[in-house]
């Protein structure tokens, strides 16, 4: 089954929704593809209990009204000439495009520490997503830890679903978080957002300079998490809990961009990063012709940056350059906010040294940190230990190893996600290009 679009958008989060709507507003035939059954992405993920935010509802309605075709449960597995090989519950599908917009978003950075693989421990955004989908959390004692404003959003969702949030343990020092809060005066909408989040979290301790050093399992209950050890400015103490939601911020999903050959960079001149993002120009064009990127894929920037970049990429991909250029000042402003976040929530070097020699690094293939000693590149380590060879293809361990300064992740290869062999066997051979859907 083959489909053709003038503009194809990968990822139906805020950036992708905005991109699809902007492109469709110029009359382009637009497809919006996502691995999930509903649009919204991570930040606007459907919540079984709560109504979607107004902005999310509006964005989804606008794309539908603009005639955008939503391709649900479409997992991209390989790139083809001006097309993608996609797996759907109905089987393989080829989706061809004139222009492609990568709005692939971000995932959480998970850093290994002793006990991090115990049942009861998830990412912060990870637990938030589970709970939105109806995972029972009511009455459970939950500690939220890691870094960034995402922790507040996750804690608020957990509380709204009945969790007893024991505390938010932010690794950034109080001085940095306070300096960040003062800067919020320049972004009033965000200040309001932060104040309302804090109000919803009234009574929940928000601790700074705090890191989870280790987690401990119960000897009676299948080694399920029962306590964590927290280190803060006053020393170390133990906290009993049922769940730990811990995330060290976000990192861009660039695997599809890598597969397409888009040039990547690590961080900005001001802030180095161990994780690559897609390089784009002012019109959000990547280094590959007809391929654009918007939102977190271009470097972690948050919701507002994602939305304006989605619009710019959508306009540009549909050939409406003026409309794209008009939005550039807004984009610059939102990217300045992103830089603030990166600066004030930079990771404390203590979190790079949490893993012990016997701590598991690669959960797919059971590889401990000490097994990786002496390797200076990911491929040599993989060949000798299988680290990163499993189902997540190094998305977790490879990113963690890059963050803690071991080695950078290897490049992407098809399939981007595990797929049925029958799908892989349907990979497109000849480019079915025709001028009719290339021009716009």
């Amino acid at each position, binding site marked *: 089954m083959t489909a053709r679009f003038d503009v194809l958008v990968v990822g139906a989060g805020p950036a992708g929704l905005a991109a699809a709507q902007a492109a469709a507003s110029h009359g382009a035939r637009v497809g919006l593809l996502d691995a999930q059954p509903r649009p919204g992405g991570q930040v606007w993920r459907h919540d079984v209990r709560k109504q979607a935010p107004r902005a999310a509802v509006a964005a989804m309605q606008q794309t539908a009204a603009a005639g955008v075709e939503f391709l649900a449960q479409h997992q991209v597995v390989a790139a083809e000439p001006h097309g993608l090989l996609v797996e759907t519950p109905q089987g393989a599908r080829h989706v061809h495009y004139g222009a492609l917009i990568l709005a692939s978003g971000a995932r959480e950075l998970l850093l290994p520490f002793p006990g991090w693989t115990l049942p009861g421990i998830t990412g912060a955004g990870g637990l938030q997503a589970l709970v939105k989908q109806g995972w029972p959390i009511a009455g459970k004692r939950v500690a939220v830890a890691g870094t960034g404003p995402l922790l507040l959003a996750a804690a608020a969702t957990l509380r709204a679903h009945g969790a007893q949030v024991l505390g938010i343990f932010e690794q950034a020092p109080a001085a940095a978080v306070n300096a960040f809060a003062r800067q919020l005066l320049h972004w009033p909408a965000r200040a309001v957002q932060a104040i309302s989040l804090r109000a919803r979290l009234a009574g929940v301790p928000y601790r700074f300079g705090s890191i989870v050093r280790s987690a401990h399992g119960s000897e009676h209950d299948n080694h399920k998490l029962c306590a964590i050890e927290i280190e803060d400015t006053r020393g170390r103490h133990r906290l009993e809990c049922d769940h730990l939601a811990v995330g060290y911020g976000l990192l861009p999903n660039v695997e599809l961009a890598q597969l397409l050959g888009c040039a990547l960079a690590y961080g900005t001149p001001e802030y180095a990063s161990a994780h690559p993002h897609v390089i784009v120009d002012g019109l959000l064009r990547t280094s590959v012709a007809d391929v654009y990127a918007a939102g977190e894929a271009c470097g972690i920037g948050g919701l507002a940056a994602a939305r304006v970049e989605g619009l710019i990429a959508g306009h540009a991909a549909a050939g409406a350059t003026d409309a794209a250029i008009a939005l550039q000042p807004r984009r610059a402003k939102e990217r300045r906010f992103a830089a603030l976040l990166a600066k004030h929530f930079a990771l404390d070097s203590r979190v790079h040294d949490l893993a012990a020699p016997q701590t598991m690094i690669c959960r797919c293939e059971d590889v401990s940190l000490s097994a990786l000693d002496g390797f200076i590149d990911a491929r*040599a380590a993989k*060949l000798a230990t299988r680290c990163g060879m499993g189902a997540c293809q190094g998305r977790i361990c490879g990113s963690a190893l890059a963050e803690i300064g071991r080695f950078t992740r290897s490049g992407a290869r098809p399939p981007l996600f595990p797929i049925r062999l029958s799908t892989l066997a349907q990979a497109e051979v000849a480019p079915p290009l025709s001028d009719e859907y290339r021009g716009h």
Partner: protein
Amino acid sequence: MSGRCYDLIVIGAGIIGASCADAAAAEGLRVAMVEPGPIGGGATAAAMGHLVAMDDDPAELALARYSLQQWESFAELPEAEFSRCGTLWVARNEAEARVIPTRIARLAAADVEAHAIDAQNLYELEPSLAPGLHGGLLVPREAVVYPPRMARYLVQRAQSHGAVLFAGRTAKQLGRGTATLDDGTQLSGPVLVATGCALPALLPQLPMRARKGHLVITERYPDVLHHQLLELGYADSAHGDADSSVAFNVQPRPTGQILIGSSREFSATDAAVSPAMVQRMLARAFEFMPVLRDLQALRTWTGFRPTTPDGRPYLGAVPGEAEQWVAAGHEGLGVTTALGSAGLMLDLILGRTPAIDPAPYAPSRAVI
């Protein structure tokens, strides 16, 4: 310059170079190894790791037999990940099955145990095979190993016997009993070049082509496949000269994963996964094992087999050069024949009578 003088300088630490360095160090030679990339990072990393006796060329069979005997000493070594799954050659029809008695006889002459299998027996051994197949040939003692870890083990064992590894270094130039590295380091001593597909960079007089292959590995399905399965027509693909070919060749990994091959291409020079070849290769595999269609593929990769004009490796002295040796060009049998190749090389280098006749592998045959 005392630390720069060796009895043997092995260039390349794939499975061949690693085996030669290990054998030399075990003999008490002062050995240097030079490897620009990861140990076993070339064809060794891409290989299936099937230890198999191919009997269509008597010289290949003699080398395989000699080598397979040595592989037995690693059967219990954790690093080898040795798994004695046996090889089952599948015949689709009576015509294909006709070669089986000849093959059994040739293998028996080389002390390799093999049995003819009828259709009923075939499905008892491998219930997931497509219906309607005729029978096969079972070689029960053959095994699979994990080549890059084995290469690493051999390099480390050589190091424990005093060998020195110049890691991250490339040999740029060979002289009479010298090798110059890319950082200017001069090593002196006899040189053994085991750089596989990269051979022409140092020894352009020895023709070598890179023959691209694709592999696909699945998630873990421990009960689907029990033997390394190949179609009886495999040798036509492996030893034929077609520009591109595919053959049914699947392997049960000790992890429960299934490794699916195989393809051969002479004209493809880039390492990218080719959807067209993956498609052809999988279509072939589905014909023999339809159940594969519904399994999850985890990864795909490619590799290049170092291929000489006659398909046999170069094992011996570099023609016209003193103190230069070569061990390269094993096509798809480098893992199987690595240990035997190393034994043969050491005998030649030390002036002993080799355990097998070295003449079929003499590099001089390639120089006109």
